[in-house]
């Protein structure tokens, strides 16, 4: 059984349909990329899973529980950790407090201190400035912080919305190499929204392509990028 399965969900904002019967599955330990053009409904998909928007129809199952329409905090407590678009650090809280915020719901309190050490080992820059306000960090540093913050919540799955948005290419490389390292060392399950299919193929994993609120294509990231199907699906002239 999949860790996360999204089954035919639809989301509307007023008159606008953002998701139309979209379905995805994420298995334990795998990396799934969700890609597609602007307005394809990628972010809405994550928000629906996180409980920030409520789907009009369809089912969402996470860790064996139905979660569609549940409150964000209840979904987070099942082990779904979200890194939303635009990072959303708590600028007025210290870096240490940002990291500790998600630990309140963990049952394994003795593990928290160890995890904190690990996070600081992976991001030494955060440790140096742990008592400073998070608002002073640069975009790349903030991205590291929110990934660290998501990890501190002790999640079964981390969902990241556009980790490369607004970052310099060099910094994007850093972010992804850190993600791969963490994934491989800790056996994380990742769900990443990423506009660049190339970036997905470099990282490796499964990929779904969304267009106009629907899942248009699904397969191995590297295979898809090699073939023609992706471009056709992306630009929408695939079906003759």
């Amino acid at each position, binding site marked *: 059984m999949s860790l996360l399965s999204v089954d035919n969900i639809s989301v509307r904002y007023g008159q606008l349909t953002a998701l139309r019967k979209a379905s995805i599955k994420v298995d334990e330990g795998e990396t799934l990329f969700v890609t597609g053009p602007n307005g394809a409904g990628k972010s809405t998909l994550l928000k629906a899973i*996180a*409980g*920030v928007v409520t789907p009009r129809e369809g089912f969402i199952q996470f860790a064996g529980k139905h979660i569609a329409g549940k*409150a*964000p*905090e209840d979904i*987070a*407590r099942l082990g779904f*950790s*979200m890194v*939303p678009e635009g990072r*959303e650090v*708590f*600028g*007025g*809280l210290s870096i240490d*407090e940002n990291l*500790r*915020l*998600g630990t*309140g*719901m963990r049952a394994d309190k003795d593990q928290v201190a160890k995890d904190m050490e690990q996070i600081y080992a992976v991001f030494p820059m955060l440790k140096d400035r742990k008592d400073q306000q998070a*608002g002073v960090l640069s975009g790349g540093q903030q991205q590291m912080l929110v990934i660290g*913050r998501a990890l501190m*919540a002790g999640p079964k799955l981390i969902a990241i919305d556009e980790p490369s948005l607004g970052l310099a290419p060099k910094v994007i490389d850093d972010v992804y190499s850190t993600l791969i390292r963490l994934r491989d060392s800790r056996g994380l399950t990742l769900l990443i929204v990423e506009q660049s299919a190339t970036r997905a193929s470099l990282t490796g994993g499964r990929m779904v392509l969304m267009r106009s609120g629907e899942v248009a294509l699904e397969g191995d990231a590297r295979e898809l990028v090699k073939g023609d199907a992706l471009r056709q699906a992306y630009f929408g002239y695939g079906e003759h």
Partner: protein
Amino acid sequence: MTALLQVLFDALSLGSLYALGALGIALIFGVMRLVNFAHGDYIAFCVFAMLWPSIDAAAIVFAGNLPTIILVPFILAVGAGLSVLSEIVVFRRFRNANPATMMIASFALGFVIKYFLLMLYSSRPKSIDLWSNLTQQIEFFGARIPPLQVITIVVTIVILIALTAFLKRTRFGLEMRAAAENFTMARMLGVRANRVIMLAFAVSGMLAAAIGLILVTQTGTVDINMGANLMLVAFVATVIGGLGSLPGAVLAGYLIGAATVIMQVVLPPDARPFRDAFVYGAVIAMLVWRPNGLFTSKATKQRV
């Protein structure tokens, strides 16, 4: 020198009341973007809780006869209880409403509380003698200062320190500060929305109760409108301080208190009756100069 000391004490004690009021309003605004106009009526309600319901002119003191050590926690609990109750019964249903709708709903709630008190106690102000020895003046370096002023200032400082410690050092405090900055993100990290909001209401209600106790000791009367004016100034202070900023609210409260007392001293006698007009004029100038308040955090600027 003594005159200066007098002004200083007056300004600090008036500012303390405003600061406590502004803090109560800013706490709620921080977690749910609600400007709670019922706050002033919480103050009145807490004071009336000391009396037995009766529409007679004379106050029948009831809970007010309890020993101080029980009375104070009791009144604080009344404030917290009323505030949390209004969250559960009313404000919870307005979480997704726009700020104007919430504001009017809070006004309507205040209206209900006020007329509930009127129904039970009538609209006539009643006098009540609570710790009246505190208002007798004592000499302090030549200035005549009632101990109540000193107590007001000290109590406010203690409350501020306790609240700061609560916000900075406890898990609840961390969650509240996070929720005030970005509620949705906090929830996505497992922060329980209902718990944080109820806690904010409880603290806010206790602050209202504290103000009520100070006011009733100062004036020796209970009146269904006793919180209204203070609430308005506190509300203005919250905005001048930068909405969502708790230190800002406190500082702005003291600033308005100081401005009021200083105007009283420096204005020519003919203009003194217009003191409040000058204070509000200064408020307008301040808002035009700094629309986002004196101490705006980056987070609130984007969202308000």
